[in-house]
């Protein structure tokens, strides 16, 4: 009788991934990763072959943000691995759970400048939550289990596993098995400290002008329902960050929309005038606070976060509650008293009437109009992803997110090229859901090669290109702060995106006039045969308002374009 063949390290790894419940791997093959790709042939895990490794990371990220489950990436060594760095940073900054597996040169050649060798663990230290270099295949079951646990628990983030080719190739006696986690340096906060929660409840019950400031942590923990109950009980208005969109339904009467640099005027006025601000899974980002020395100077600050390193990093809170946002807020709701905030809500309502989001209705096709119509037609049922820039801010303003995990955008890293592959990942996760990537002409060209991936799988993902043939946000800043001296902003040489889509076999549609918007959007929505690219040829020179110049205080918010010349912003970017 023939002895049973031992599995290779690659086969063991793939079995461990199956054990973790992995459905999809987004990857691009290469020499050093071949043993793992080979093992995938016999696996029920579906390999999604991408056209560039950055696309794989954003697809996995989109999949992760749309589901809460980790996105898995498999690439080869050297350039394959270095192409994931942008995706790792994007995921780290926005706390998205990724597991990125990289091939590596064989262990005897490590550090000897072998072909396609790169010190990948070294290069990626600053952009991962944790990482592993596997030097013994028997470690794979533990490494994979730890990687998935670390990626998804606590404050989620990307974990990288570097697997030398001989580890993947050689037979290995180990079996995927239940592994006891041994992570003495790692703990996951759960419920909050009752004393702190009681203290917060006291402050909240006494506040006359309370404000709930909701971030991505609330989305991740699924705290939206609890926060809505809390807001209703306190009768407190709610604002969210760019990434907090969807935790609490933005059409809720107590919701004032997005705060911060390009937030609604009424949200920012509420931030300036509140007497208590409670951050829930948010980190007082510079896009949110404006000039720190002027930020909520008289307000009581309460900070709920799962990451203890966030307390006092930017703002020193009066009460810091360490824990999972949902569990903390659920405990808190029990303890607060009905708020006496009639005057405050009336004031917020007045601001909402006085300073609505607006845009010029004349002078050609406007992105704002297209997005407002998309919002009206989809009613929050579609998952929206974005790139970074003007279109992102307009989408954040005019597309009100009603549901959790229905708004996927690169916030912290501000990664252009994120939107389209993220939408592909989200579409794989939810094949029956409507998914729109809202992108600019600049960002789309960074990852548009993934049209091939989307077309191959006939994914019904929609791409709305807000095309002004500019890096629009750059042009806006140069107009406002650099005497309109445009430098590196004009994207002359753009392709015809409709023809480009068609070249991939995808559907291409163009919107030129406001009157065409609804018809074309409806046509795109009805198309289920594969990807559909809608190019909105919008007015070239349009600006996003309201705007708080970087480094200015929120009170200096510009509702519309000022007549006078502005000083160069002091803020970071």
């Amino acid at each position, binding site marked *: 009788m023939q002895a049973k063949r031992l599995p290779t390290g690659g086969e063991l790894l793939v079995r461990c991934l199956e054990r973790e419940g992995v459905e999809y791997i987004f990857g691009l093959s290469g020499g050093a990763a071949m043993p793992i790709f080979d093992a995938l042939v016999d696996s029920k895990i579906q390999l999604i072959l991408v056209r560039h490794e950055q696309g794989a990371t954003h697809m996995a990220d989109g999949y992760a943000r749309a589901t809460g489950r980790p996105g898995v990436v498999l690439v080869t060594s050297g350039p394959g691995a270095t192409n994931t760095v942008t995706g790792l940073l994007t995921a780290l900054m926005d706390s998205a759970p990724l597991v990125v597996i990289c091939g590596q040169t064989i262990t005897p050649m490590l550090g000897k400048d072998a072909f396609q060798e790169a010190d990948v663990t070294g290069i990626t*230290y600053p952009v991962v939550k944790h990482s592993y270099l596997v030097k013994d295949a028997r470690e794979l079951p533990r490494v994979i289990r730890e990687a998935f646990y*670390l990626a998804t628990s606590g404050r989620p983030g990307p974990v990288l596993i570097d697997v030398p080719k001989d580890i993947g190739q050689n037979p290995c006696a180990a079996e995927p098995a239940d592994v006891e986690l041994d992570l003495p*340096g790692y703990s996951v906060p759960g419920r909050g400290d009752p004393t702190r929660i009681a203290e917060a409840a006291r402050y909240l019950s006494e506040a006359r002008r309370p404000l709930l400031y909701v971030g991505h942590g609330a989305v991740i923990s699924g705290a939206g329902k609890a926060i809505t109950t809390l807001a209703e009980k306190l009768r407190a208005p709610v604002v969210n960050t760019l990434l907090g969109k969807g935790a609490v339904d933005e059409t809720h009467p107590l919701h004032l929309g997005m705060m911060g640099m390009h937030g609604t005027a009424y949200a920012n006025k509420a931030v300036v005038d509140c007497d208590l601000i409670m951050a829930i899974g948010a980190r007082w980002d510079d896009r949110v606070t404006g000039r720190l020395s002027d930020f909520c100077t008289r307000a009581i600050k309460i900070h709920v976060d799962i990451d203890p*390193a966030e307390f*006092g990093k930017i703002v020193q809170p009066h009460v810091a509650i360490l824990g999972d946002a949902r569990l903390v807020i659920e405990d808190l709701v029990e303890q607060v008293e009905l708020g006496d905030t009639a005057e405050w809500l009336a004031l917020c309502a007045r601001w909402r009437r006085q300073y609505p989001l607006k845009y010029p209705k004349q002078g050609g096709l406007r992105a704002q109009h297209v997005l407002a119509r998309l919002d009206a037609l989809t009613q929050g049922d579609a998952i929206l992803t974005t790139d970074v820039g003007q279109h992102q801010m307009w989408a954040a303003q005019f597309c009100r997110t009603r549901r959790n995990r229905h708004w996927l955008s690169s916030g912290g890293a501000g990664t252009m090229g994120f939107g389209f592959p993220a939408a592909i990942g989200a579409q794989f996760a939810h094949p029956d859901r409507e998914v729109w990537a809202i992108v600019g002409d600049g960002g789309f060209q960074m990852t548009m090669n993934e049209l091939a991936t989307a077309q191959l799988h006939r994914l019904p993902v929609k791409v709305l290109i807000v095309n002004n043939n500019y890096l629009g946000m750059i042009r806006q800043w140069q107009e406002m702060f650099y005497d309109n001296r445009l430098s590196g902003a004009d994207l002359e040489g753009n392709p015809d995106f409709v023809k480009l889509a068609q070249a991939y076999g995808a559907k291409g549609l163009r919107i030129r006039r406001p009157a065409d918007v609804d018809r074309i959007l409806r046509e795109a929505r009805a198309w289920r045969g594969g990807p559909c690219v809608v190019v909105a040829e919008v007015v070239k020179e349009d600006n996003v308002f309201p705007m708080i110049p970087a480094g200015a205080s929120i009170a200096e918010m510009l509702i519309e374009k000022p007549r006078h010349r502005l000083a160069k912003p002091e803020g970071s970017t």
Partner: protein
Amino acid sequence: MSAAPAPAVEAAPPPIHTISLFVNNKPGVLVRVALTFSRRGFNIESLVVSPAAEGRFSRMTMTCRGAAADLDQVVRQLAKLVDVVHAIDHTGDQSYEVEIALVKVECPLDGRTQILQIAEHYHARVVDYGSEALILQLHGSSEKLDACLELLRPFGISELVRSGKLLMARGRRVT
């Protein structure tokens, strides 16, 4: 006559902090720790890494200059690293601290009286007595070592190796 530029008021350097780390004894831990400092442009002034009582853990003791609020943030970021079990800033604590230094002073045989007097005063041991140079072994608090080295400097220190500060919290408090 051109006015001389006003002498710059020399700001006192930020205080030295001593941080102890209890970490997994795994490859890459030191890099992760060092990156947490270097990302902020902090310089690690001294660093000691050694096995802990239990072999799978290591101890790191490091000193660094910086404002208390900045260092507090660094310590939180260090504690967040998966391989760091705990991180403690011992600045201002009642802890026992010690450092060892080897110092080579090049000096002919007939000019050593004063050097040996200094060594005796600081309880330094002469560990090598060559014809052209001698090596002293100093131990004590880092401040004591600084003082002794200051006295030896005029005689010509040709080489100096310091261990970096070692520290242990007193009583039942954790290092």
